């Protein structure tokens, strides 16, 4: 439930902005027919580039329905895609390292997208997905051939947004894949796409000439947001790959909550057979303790305790040992760790690389 809420909030904030940068043109195209019917003698301007001008001139009530149809079609398309990815995730269990590589790849793509939007170098243009000429032609004909009463065009173009997912959407698609459940994948994508909808609607419906002038600045702002997100996406990928050094980990060290710090002093207990046993409380936003000192040369049992946990911290991974465990929302699970050499450091994290910790074998 928490991850679905997070998906919605991501959509509402960053997702809406970055997707608008990529898919806004399609929305504008879908409105073209409507606008041309509503406004006579409209200059034959481009659908995408000058999208604010016609939106301003057209009687606004006439635009609400096609925008809503476009967005509804988009939600349907992404929900189906989420279900499909959840199903694929169920079929092919991704290893933590594969997921890490996927996450880093997505982060690099987002980085390239941000640099493209900031016009840093023409090479970054290749980070934009350009539909093939025949699809562009088909889109153009559909958009220009539509009359105002035909809602099939916005519906069709809304469905086609799956062909041009933005950076944040791609990260969310990867998350849907990792849910390994068609239902959860569909719910996650539906929540995310629903979250992006208010921004799309607001921009299409309320934009003014001032908005058109400010578009460049707005897009720069979006680019900077994507850039920051990209850095965190790459960082979570790095954490998921098992790197003991990551930005998120460094920040959580700076802002560590006192409860987690006091727990650091917890000494490992011993089982009857001489194995060390350490309890980790799995919380919605952290593992406590997150830095664990353990004895080298003896087997270690990690006792993972959950109590109404609904976030991705339930999906516990230790990349170095290829351990993946989906914990119950409430309950206990034990992970066995074979004896390690003195000085060994083994990071663990959630399957998204968002929350994590490290076991240091220095006792």
């Amino acid at each position, binding site marked *: 439930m928490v991850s679905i809420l997070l998906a919605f909030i991501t959509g509402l904030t960053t997702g809406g902005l970055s997707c608008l940068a990529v898919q806004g*043109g399609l929305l504008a*195209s879908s409105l073209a027919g409507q606008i041309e019917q509503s406004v006579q003698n409209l200059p034959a*301007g481009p*659908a*995408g*580039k000058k999208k604010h001008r016609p939106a301003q001139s057209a009687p606004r009530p006439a635009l609400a329905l096609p925008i809503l149809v476009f967005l509804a079609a988009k939600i349907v398309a992404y929900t189906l895609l989420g279900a499909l990815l959840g199903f694929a995730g169920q079929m092919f269990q991704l290893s933590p390292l594969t997921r890490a590589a996927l996450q880093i790849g997505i982060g690099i793509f987002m980085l390239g997208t941000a640099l493209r939007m900031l016009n840093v170098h023409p090479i970054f243009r290749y980070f934009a997905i350009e539909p093939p000429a025949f699809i562009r032609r088909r889109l*153009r004909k559909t958009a220009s051939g539509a009359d105002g009463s035909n809602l099939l065009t916005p519906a069709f173009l809304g469905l086609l947004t799956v062909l041009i997912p933005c950076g944040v959407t791609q990260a969310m698609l990867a998350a849907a894949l990792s849910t390994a459940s068609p239902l959860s994948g569909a719910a996650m994508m539906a929540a995310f796409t629903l979250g992006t909808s208010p921004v799309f609607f607001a921009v299409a419906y309320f934009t003014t000439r001032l908005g058109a002038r400010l578009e460049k600045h707005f897009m720069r702002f979006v680019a900077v947001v994507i850039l920051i997100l990209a850095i965190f996406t790459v960082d979570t990928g790095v954490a998921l790959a098992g790197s003991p050094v990551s930005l998120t980990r460094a920040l959580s060290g700076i802002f560590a909550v006192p409860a987690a710090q006091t727990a650091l002093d917890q000494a490992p207990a011993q089982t009857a057979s001489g194995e060390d046993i350490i309890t980790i409380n799995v919380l919605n936003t952290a593992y406590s303790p997150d830095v664990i000192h353990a004895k080298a040369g003896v087997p270690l049992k990690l006792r993972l305790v959950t109590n109404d946990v609904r976030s991705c911290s339930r999906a516990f991974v230790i990349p170095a040992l290829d351990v993946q465990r989906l914990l119950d929302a409430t309950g206990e699970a034990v992970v066995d760790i074979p004896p390690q050499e003195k000085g060994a450091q083994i990071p663990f994290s959630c399957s998204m690389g968002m929350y994590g910790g490290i076991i240091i074998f220095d006792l």
Partner: protein
Amino acid sequence: MTTRIVFKIAGMECPNCAMTLESLEDKLPGVQRAEASYHKAQMVVEFDEDRVSEAQIRAAIQKLGYEAQ
């Protein structure tokens, strides 16, 4: 007679601009094929010289908000 010219285009900001430029195919009589690429920042135009001139095509591109170099 069909002529083919590759225009370098300035001012394309996203892949959607390619679609916008390609609308010349519908709007300018004599243009037989217009294929733009955001990646390469260019547009290939095939046109009938008897019906439309290169200057007219450049002017149409400019009217759309881009510059043919």
